[in-house]
């Protein structure tokens, strides 16, 4: 469904992604794990057109989308939940959700469809419905994350890009959010690319994973395999970690 071929992305002179290639099958949940600054967010931003690739190719459903601007990419059915949630704080929950459907307003009928989609988002996250008129900035981190996901869903995506949805949230809330992701795949057939630092939780949810280090993919495979991989365990899962004096 999505394929990245030899992507190189630069921030000015900084070479952030080095020949990154990866793919996602229809209905798959794939996770990208790696340390801070490894280039996880850059991969998502390259796919969504926020920081376009310097070279290489992005194919979505066999069509090249590499050089498209971000609004065109949203039209193709790729929707991103940006890092740190970035809900529109001075706007109400409802207005945030309507913004997610920004490109879908064309006729009166669309309004009805968008209303219906909004009730679906409320069904996924009942807490958002209770707070529909509240300003997004006044909600808790977990609620804002739910809103950010709901907002992305309002674009009716085939592929959802999530950037560290667990960041700064209580384990209970993370569980709740991950359950929703699972449900989205099962019931709506949404394909998910999940960037996470919480490698353990992400690998438990995902079918496959890629491990990224300083802009390069160093490891890939089914989640179960990665969970057992000694290198992954040491670097990202915190098992078999030895303090300096124990070595």
């Amino acid at each position, binding site marked *: 469904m999505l394929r990245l071929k030899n992507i190189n992305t630069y921030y000015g002179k900084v070479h952030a992604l080095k020949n990154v290639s990866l793919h996602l099958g229809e209905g798959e949940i794939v996770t990208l794990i790696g340390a801070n600054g490894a280039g996880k967010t850059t991969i998502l931003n390259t796919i*969504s*057109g*926020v920081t376009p690739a310097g070279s290489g190719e992005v194919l979505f459903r066999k069509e090249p989308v590499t050089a498209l*601007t*971000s*609004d065109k990419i*949203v*039209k193709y059915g790729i*929707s*991103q939940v*940006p890092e740190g949630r*970035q*809900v*529109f*704080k*001075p*706007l109400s929950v409802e*207005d945030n959700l*309507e*913004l*997610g459907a*920004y*490109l879908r*307003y064309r006729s009166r009928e669309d309004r009805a469809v968008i209303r219906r989609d909004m009730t679906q988002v409320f069904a996924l996250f009942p807490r958002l419905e209770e707070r529909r008129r509240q300003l997004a900035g006044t909600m808790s981190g977990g609620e804002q994350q739910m809103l950010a996901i709901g*907002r*992305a869903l309002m*674009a009716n995506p085939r592929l959802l890009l999530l950037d560290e949805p667990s960041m700064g949230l209580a384990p209970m809330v993370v569980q709740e959010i991950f359950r929703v992701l699972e449900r989205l795949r099962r019931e709506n057939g949404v394909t998910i690319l999940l960037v996470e630092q919480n490698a353990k939780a992400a690998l438990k949810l995902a079918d496959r994973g890629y491990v990224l280090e300083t802009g390069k993919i160093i490891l890939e495979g089914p989640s179960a395999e990665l969970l057992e991989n000694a290198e992954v365990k040491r670097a990202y899962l915190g098992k078999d970690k030895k303090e300096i004096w124990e070595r």
Partner: protein
Amino acid sequence: MRRELLKFLFFAVLILAAPLVFSGGYLMNVLVFVGINTMLAVALNLLLGYAGQISLGHAGFFGIGAYLSGILTATYGWNAWLAMPLAALVVGTLAGLIGFPILKLKGHYLAMATLGLGIIIYIVFNETVDLTGGPSGLSGIPNLSIGSLVFDNDFKNYYLIWTFGLAVVLFCVNLAGSRVGRALRAVNDSEVAARVMGVNARILKVQVFALSAVISSLAGSLYAHTMTFVSPASFGFNFSVELLTMVVIGGLGSVYGSFLGAALLTLLPELLRGAQDYDIIIYGGLLMSMVMFMPGGLVRGLPELFRRVARRREGAGNA
């Protein structure tokens, strides 16, 4: 939406009834200017309060509108009703073309770029003497007229200006509550998030910049035809800052706030006339205390103040 309509109707009735109370005299003339300044402040607020993009050059767009209308009618004998939309079109195109490169800039850099733009326009007004009359100005601009009705006194002008003023207010209130208004506020809050929602932030910013300039140009044309005389001094950097002050004092992101700001800043110099040379001190002090104690502007600060006073009264009653 119904509530917004009621609010607007209330506002419109208030504006249309004002001459019944203040009719005649000098105040009427000042209220005409409140109308023009309201249009300008509302226009700038779209850009600054909603989209979060600063402009220190809006007096320039105001001026181009005024001069184009003035030159086309006074020098070339055009019909004023034709000159006005043409001026707006020219200013809109100009703002669109300039907006593309400069709206890539953010914060202080955008402020500097628009400041430069305003200064360039001001210099052009001064230097193209053959066209604009230079520093001594351009006179003989005809009043607007419909058939035999000539808008040649303050009373008539009041209703002329406020017809446009109310239309601008209604348009901006609608825009603010629409999908586009939401997108503007989204761009203001987080441009990246707005972009991944499918908002083409770059185009949207240029569009709102051009729209804001068009409204300013319209206000400029109306100004020229009411004053029948224009000179560069009205369109300098000071006036750009004054507009900015109106928007901030009234309240960023509130259309009616812009009216309050425009009304206050237009009336205040008149009220302070008795204070003679000290008016500028009072003016400055007021500005400083506004920013310190009512950062949300009059439109949010005043209700808050009333609530606080009411609560204190209640407290005193109980004690």
